[in-house]
């Protein structure tokens, strides 16, 4: 099964979404990412029991921080899907990309000549 | 008759064995003396003493001390209320001395509603002492002629000391013990929270009588006539420590259009009739909140007029 998804999405693999911390998501935004999302296992199906549930809370916290400093919280999201749902993975990638495209480039990157260059 | 503690009218009425009838009045939210005096005319001659509330529900008003003094000037007897929320022991002691100097002879000791209910929720509360310790403080000043630090007082204030009791707050089984504690602290009389659940109150009073508390203290039953079913519903749902049975709400709702207030008064009158006969009850404290003008009619219909002259 070879599914296409937008090339803008850069995948970083972690053993469990539970490993994803608040600071990782913030650092991504800080360094100029227009959006970040976490693709975790379905709720109730975490191999480590609650990794995905804990990370959903972290994602919510990051959204709160972004909201407080005037950055669209929608730039950060959490999705749940199983490893068998390849089509869903591609669909989410398209969905998220479309949403970010709508929001436009991150204001962080707009004002940052360095990351602008990197992104270019 | 044993020696009087303060010689207030309320004390004399109770000591003489009459069924006491006290009223309540809130000072104005401003310096409107005229408005305050206007309320007095409904109460004068219809009650033995009038409670003057102290920043009730933590909403700031004219000081209860000043308003009590104005009341004396108008020929009524105040029951000066004092809460521990707004004063430390220095201010409390000073106000007690001042109250006596101004001719005040009754005082009700309260902890006070939390300031979060009122119009200055940002305030720092005091609670240096609590209501139990306030009873102890004022009776120590009167009986031992000492401040609570043990220093002697040059002309001690002589006040007839009251306390509140809410039989409907939780835990119910502890309420009678807390009342006993207030009496042990020195309370001469008790005014209860508004009573609506008569069955629970009868149970409570049985405990009071079994413990002999009514022989050590005068207990006045709190009555607040309901103006309508909405008020009953509100009190039932939103006022902590208030027990309004559904049967009363239904009874008010069932009244004919425009007759809910009359039904509320009827219920209050039935209560007063029962209190007159209830063992351990020495009187009624009528809290007609912002309904002072109904007091003459209620007193008349309750058959408590004319008030005894002692």
């Amino acid at each position: 099964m070879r599914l296409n998804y937008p090339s803008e999405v850069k995948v970083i693999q972690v053993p469990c979404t539970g490993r994803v911390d608040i600071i990782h998501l913030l650092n991504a935004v800080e360094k100029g990412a227009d959006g970040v999302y976490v693709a975790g296992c379905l709720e109730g199906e975490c191999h480590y029991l609650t990794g995905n549930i804990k990370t959903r809370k972290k994602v919510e916290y990051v959204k709160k921080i972004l909201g407080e400093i005037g950055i669209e919280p929608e730039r950060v999201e959490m999705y749940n899907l199983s490893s068998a749902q390849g089509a869903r993975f591609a669909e989410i990638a398209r969905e998220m990309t479309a949403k970010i495209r709508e929001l436009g480039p991150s204001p962080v990157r707009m004002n940052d000549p360095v990351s602008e260059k990197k992104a270019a | 008759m044993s020696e009087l503690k303060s010689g207030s009218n309320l004390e004399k009425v109770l000591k003489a064995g009459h069924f006491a009838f006290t009223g309540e009045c809130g000072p104005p939210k401003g310096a409107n003396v005229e408005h305050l005096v206007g309320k007095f005319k409904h109460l004068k001659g219809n009650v033995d003493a009038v409670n003057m509330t102290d920043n009730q529900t933590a909403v700031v008003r004219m000081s209860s001390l000043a308003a009590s003094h104005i009341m004396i000037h108008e020929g009524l007897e105040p029951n000066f209320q004092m809460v521990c929320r707004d004063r430390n022991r220095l201010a409390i002691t000073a106000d007690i001395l001042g109250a006596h100097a101004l001719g005040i002879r009754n005082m009700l000791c309260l902890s006070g509603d939390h300031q979060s209910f009122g119009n200055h929720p940002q305030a720092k509360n005091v609670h240096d002492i609590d209501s139990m310790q306030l009873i102890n403080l004022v009776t120590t000043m009167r009986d031992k002629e000492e401040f609570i630090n043990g220093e002697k007082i040059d002309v001690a204030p002589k006040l007839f000391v009251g306390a509140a009791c809410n039989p409907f707050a939780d835990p119910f089984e502890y309420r009678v013990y807390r009342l006993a504690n207030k009496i042990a602290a020195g309370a001469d009389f008790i005014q209860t929270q508004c009573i609506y659940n008569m069955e629970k109150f009868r149970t409570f009073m049985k405990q009071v009588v079994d413990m002999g508390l009514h022989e050590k203290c005068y207990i006045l039953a709190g009555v607040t006539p309901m103006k309508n079913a909405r008020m009953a519903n509100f009190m039932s749902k939103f006022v902590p420590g208030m027990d309004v049975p559904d049967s009363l709400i239904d009874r008010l709702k069932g009244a004919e259009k425009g007759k809910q207030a009359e039904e509320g008064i009827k219920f209050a009158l039935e209560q007063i009739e029962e209190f007159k006969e209830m063992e351990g009850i020495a009187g009624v404290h009528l809290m007609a909140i912002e309904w002072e003008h109904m007091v003459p009619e209620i007193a008349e219909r309750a058959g408590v007029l004319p008030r005894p002259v002692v």
Partner: protein
Amino acid sequence: MIVADRKSLEEIQEMIKPHRKLLIVGCKGCVTVCNVGGSKEVEILASALTIARKKENNEIEIDTTTIERQCDNEYVSQLKETVGNYDAVLSMACGVGPQFLSEYYREQKFYPAVNTTFFGGAVSHGIWEERCAGCGTCIIHDFDGICPIARCAKSLLHGPCGGSSNGLCEISKETICIWDAIVAKKIEQGRLEDLLKVRPAKDWRTARDGGPRRSIREELTR
């Protein structure tokens, strides 16, 4: 431990507005345990502030460090070499931290990044509750290990007041009536008579009311 909450990012941003080079100092003491001012939170705050300033096109340089304890000059002194390199320093310790830092480094400007709230503990993950008011005269043994000074909204020594309803305090449905709990425990242990006495007015001199407090342990002083 001492519990604190981070100030809003809006308030912190306003504080540091004039500065372009900032040091954020965390503390490995209580604020690490209550997840508000340890190394993790320091990094999060640094990142959030960096993002905010990038967005405003008013960049800021933020360095971070977390010391053992900000309430101890032995550790505070460890910042000696670096603290002068910044326009200002944001402390994520309790209120003691920025004061010790200010006293030690008189030339530098320090800001508190947290609001210090109470002495308490974690009742479950992510939830802390107040337990002690630091009144200086502990009487919890009289109340079977429950402190009415810290935990009753009115600090009553003879509760529960008339606002106690279904085990809850009159101030909110989120607050338990601690006096209800005290009475329940006394009844359960058959010691209700403990409560049936009038306690003398409390001596508040040992509390904050007696003025700023100081504790001297002669055997330790030099």
